[in-house]
C-alpha cells in the first residue's frame, strides 16, 4: 500500500504540480510589463573612447547584450553580488569583508547540483559517462569503501550553516519567516535521509531504478509491482523530495527562475543609445494630462505646454524677447 501511494500516486501528483506551477509562475511574470529600462549600474558606463572600462565595468554596467549575458551568468554561477558583500560596523570606519553567506550559498548550490547530477543515474539508462566520471571523481573512487560522495555530505553541512545563520545572527533571525526555516528543515530532512539510506539502512537501488524508469514511461502496472518491494526508508526520502517538488513553485525557491527575470540585472545600460518603449504608455501626452481614473473618478492635471506657459507669463517672456533672448550684466 505504502508503495502504491508514495511510489506511484504521490510522485505523479508532485511532478504535475511542479511542472504546472513553474510554468504558471513564469508565464505570470512574463506577462507583466516592463515599463522602463532600469538596470542597476555597478560600474563605469560606456562612454567616450578615452574613458577606460575594465572588465568588471563591462559586466557591472553592461552595454551590449553579451555583456549583459555575462553579468547574468556570473551572477548565476558565481553569486557575484554576494561576493561583494561587506559588513558595516558602527564602531569602525573600515569595513570587513563578510563573504560567509557567499561561501555557504556556493557550498549548498554546487553540492545540490552534483547530487542532482548523480541522481540522474536513477532515471537514465545507460548512465551517461560524464555522470559516472563526475561521481567517481568526487568520491575519490577506491579510497573509501563504500565510496563516500563528498557532495552529499557537504550539502548537509552547508544547510546547517545556513540555518545556524538564521538562528544565531540577530538580524537574520528577525528577518526569517517560518517558511524560511521550513525549507531549510525540509532540505535537511531530505539530504539526511538520503545519506542514511546510502551508508546505513540500504535500499535496493536496482528496484528504485526500476520503479523510476517505469514511472517515466507510464508503465503503471509494473511500477506498482516494483514499488511494493522497496524498503520503507526509501519512501521517507522519496516522499519528502516529492513534497519539496510540489512546494517549489509556491515558495521563495522560485528564486531559481526569478533570477533571470529581474530587470535591474537583465537589461543593458544603453538607454542613451536605444530607446525603450513602454508597452502601456504611448508617450505622446503625459498620462496625468489625459487623466488617471481611481474608483470611477478621473483626476486630470492641466499640461503646461508652451502656449499655456506663454499666456500665463506673457509680460515677462516678452521682456526676454525684447532683450533678444540675450542676458548681459546690467550697467551699474
Amino acid at each position, binding site marked *: 500500500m505504502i508503495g502504491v501511494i508514495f511510489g506511484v500516486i504521490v510522485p505523479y501528483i508532485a511532478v504535475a504540480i511542479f511542472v504546472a506551477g513553474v510554468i504558471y509562475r513564469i508565464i505570470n*511574470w512574463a506577462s507583466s510589463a516592463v515599463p522602463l529600462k532600469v538596470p542597476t549600474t555597478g560600474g563605469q558606463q560606456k562612454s567616450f573612447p578615452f574613458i577606460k572600462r575594465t572588465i568588471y565595468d563591462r559586466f557591472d554596467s553592461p552595454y551590449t547584450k553579451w555583456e549583459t549575458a555575462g553579468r547574468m551568468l556570473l551572477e548565476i554561477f558565481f553569486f557575484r553580488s554576494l561576493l561583494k558583500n561587506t559588513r558595516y560596523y558602527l564602531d569602525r570606519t573600515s569595513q570587513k569583508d563578510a563573504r560567509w553567506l557567499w561561501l555557504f550559498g556556493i557550498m549548498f548550490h554546487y553540492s545540490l547540483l552534483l547530487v542532482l547530477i548523480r541522481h540522474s543515474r536513477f532515471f537514465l539508462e545507460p548512465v551517461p559517462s560524464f555522470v559516472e566520471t563526475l561521481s567517481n571523481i568526487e568520491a575519490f573512487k577506491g579510497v573509501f569503501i563504500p565510496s563516500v560522495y563528498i557532495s552529499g555530505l557537504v550539502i548537509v553541512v552547508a544547510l546547517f550553516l545556513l540555518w545556524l545563520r538564521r538562528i544565531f545572527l540577530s538580524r537574520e533571525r528577525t528577518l526569517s519567516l517560518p517558511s524560511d526555516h521550513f525549507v531549510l528543515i525540509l532540505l535537511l530532512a531530505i539530504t539526511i535521509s538520503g545519506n542514511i539510506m546510502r551508508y546505513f539502512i540500504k535500499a535496493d537501488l536496482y528496484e528504485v531504478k526500476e520503479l523510476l524508469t517505469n514511472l517515466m514511461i507510464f508503465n503503471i502496472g509494473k511500477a506498482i509491482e516494483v514499488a511494493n518491494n522497496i524498503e520503507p526508508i526509501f519512501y521517507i526520502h522519496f516522499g519528502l523530495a516529492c513534497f519539496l517538488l510540489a512546494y517549489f513553485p509556491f515558495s521563495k525557491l522560485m528564486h531559481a527562475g526569478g533570477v533571470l527575470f529581474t530587470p535591474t540585472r537583465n537589461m543593458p545600460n544603453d538607454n542613451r543609445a536605444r530607446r525603450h518603449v513602454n508597452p502601456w504608455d504611448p508617450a505622446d501626452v503625459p498620462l496625468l494630462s489625459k487623466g488617471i481614473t481611481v474608483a470611477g473618478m478621473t483626476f486630470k492635471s492641466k499640461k503646461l505646454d508652451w502656449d499655456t506657459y506663454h499666456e500665463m507669463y506673457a509680460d515677462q517672456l516678452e521682456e526676454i524677447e525684447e532683450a533678444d533672448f540675450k542676458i548681459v550684466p546690467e550697467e551699474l
Partner: protein
Amino acid sequence: MEEAPERLEIRQRFPSWREMLKPVKKFEEGRVSYLSLPKQVNSEFFKMPFGDVERDLDDLKLPENWKEIFLDAMKDTLEKNRAFKVFMDICVRCGACADKCHYYIGTGDPKNMPVGRAELIRSVYRRYFTPAGKIFGELAGARELTEDVLKELYYYAYQCSLCRRCSVFCPYGIDTAEIVWWLRRMLSRVGLNQRFMTISIEASSRTGNHLGLLPGGMYGSIQQGLEELKDITGFDLHTYINKKGADVLFVAPSADYFATPHWYVMLGYLLLFNELEERYGLTITWSTYAGEGGNFGSFHSYEAAQLLNSKLYKEAERLGVSFIIGGECGHMWRDKHQFINTMNQPPKNEEWKRFWENPDLGELAEGLRGIRFDSYASGEHGWIHILEFVAALIEHKKIKVDKSRNDQWIATYHDPCNIARGMGLIEEPRYVLRNVMNNFYDMPEHTIKDKTYCCGAGGGLLADELMDLRMRGVMPRMMAVRHVYKKYGVNILLTPCAIDKAQFPHALEYWKIPVEVGGPMEMVGNALVLTAFGEKPEDRQYDLRGEPLKKEEGE
C-alpha cells in the same frame, strides 16, 4: 529648521518575526514626513486622487473604499511592472542587503533594512495575492491591510531615499528603491502624498521649475551671475535664454539659480559657455520653460515624473537645438538617463535629426571637430552630462585649464547615488577633477562609485521635518569624509548633485567636520582660462567664491 538631537543614539533592535508583522504605532520624531496639503495635490496643474482634503497622520480621512482602491492599485502595479512582481516573489530574506542601507545603519530600526522595508508591502501582497498567504495567514508571513498598516507603509516609504545601494548587493538585484517607488504611487491613489516633494512637483508643473521661479526671476538670477563674473574676471560675459536657433539647450537643476554652494557651479557653467562661444562659435541657450533639470516627480510616481519631464524634449524641439546638455544633479540623471526617452517622444526637429546622423561637434562648430557622441548616445536620447562634455573638451585639448588656481583646495568626490547606480557616470568626473586640480583624493573604496553612500536626503527626504533621519542617514558618508579629512587634510567635498549640496553643509556641521561643499563645475570654472577673451593663466585674481587666489607671502 528642526534640529536633530544633540546626542544621537543608535539603538539596534531585533524583534521576532511576529513582531515585525505588527504595524509600528509610535512614529519617531524627525522621521515622519508631513502629508500634502490640498494646494499641492489638488492644484489645477497637479491633481492627485482625493487631494482635496487636508489630512494628518492621526486622521487620514481616507476615502470610504480605500482598501479596495489600494489593492486595485497594487494589482495594477503587479501587471504594469514586472520588477515589482518578481521582487515580491523571489526575495529569500538572506539579509545581504540589510546593513547596506544608510538609514538602517543610522537608525537601527529593523524595518529600515531594505528587506524589512520591502517586507512591509510584501506581507500585504502575500495576504491578498498568493495562495499560501490566503490560507496560512500570519504563518506564511502575510498580514491584513489595516489603517495602521497603511500608516506604517507611509512612514517607511518616506524613509527610503531611493538610492539603490541595496540593489547592488542583492543576489537577485532586488531594487528596494523600485518597490518603494511603486508603493508611493499606490499610496497616492488613496490620497497619501508627501508634502515636501509635492510642493516642488506642483510648482514645477505650474511654472516649469521646482522653486516656482517665474521667467523674469530666472533671467534676473542668471544676470546676477554674469555681474559677479564681471567682478571676478573683468570681462563682459553674456548668455542666451529661450533662444531659438542655438546649438545646444542647457538644463540645470533650479537650485543652481539661487542656493549656495550651487551658485558657484552656476558661475562655472557660464564661464565655460562663454569660452566655447567666443572661441568656437558654439551657442548654448537656457530656457525658462525647460528651466528645471531635476524632477521631483521621479520620487513620486511614473506619472508625476512624466508630467514634469515631458516639457524638455518639447522645448528642445521648439528651440531647434541639436542636443541637450544637463547640469550637476543626481536624480535628474536617473530621470534623464533611464526615464525620459521612454516617457516621451524625442525631438523631431531637423537640426536634431541632422546632428545625430553624424554626431560630431565639428558639425556645429568646426573647431570642436573630433568630439563625437556616437560611442554611447543617439538621437533617440540626446542628453550629455556636463562633466562628460568637459572631460571630452579636456581630452581633445579644446579648453585651456590652469590647475594651480585650485591649489587652495584639497578635494574629495562624492558619487551621487543616481548617477553612479542609475547611469554609471563614475570615471568622467574623476577625469575632470584630476585635470583641473592638483589635490584630489578618493574616499575609501567601499563608500564610493557603485557602493557610494547616499547623502541621506535624496528621494524627496530633504524635508526639514526629517532632520533627525537625515543626520542619521548621512552618517556613513560623513565617517568616510572624516577619514579623508584626517588622512589627507581634505577641505572640500565635491558633488555634482543639487540635493547633496543642500544636505552636506548641514551634515558636515552636525558631524563637526570642517570641510566645505562644492561642485566639480566650480573647480572647472576656477581653472578655466578664458583664452578667447585674452585671459592669461596668471591673470585671474579671485576664485568663484570671490576669495583672492594668491596667498600672501609667509601665510
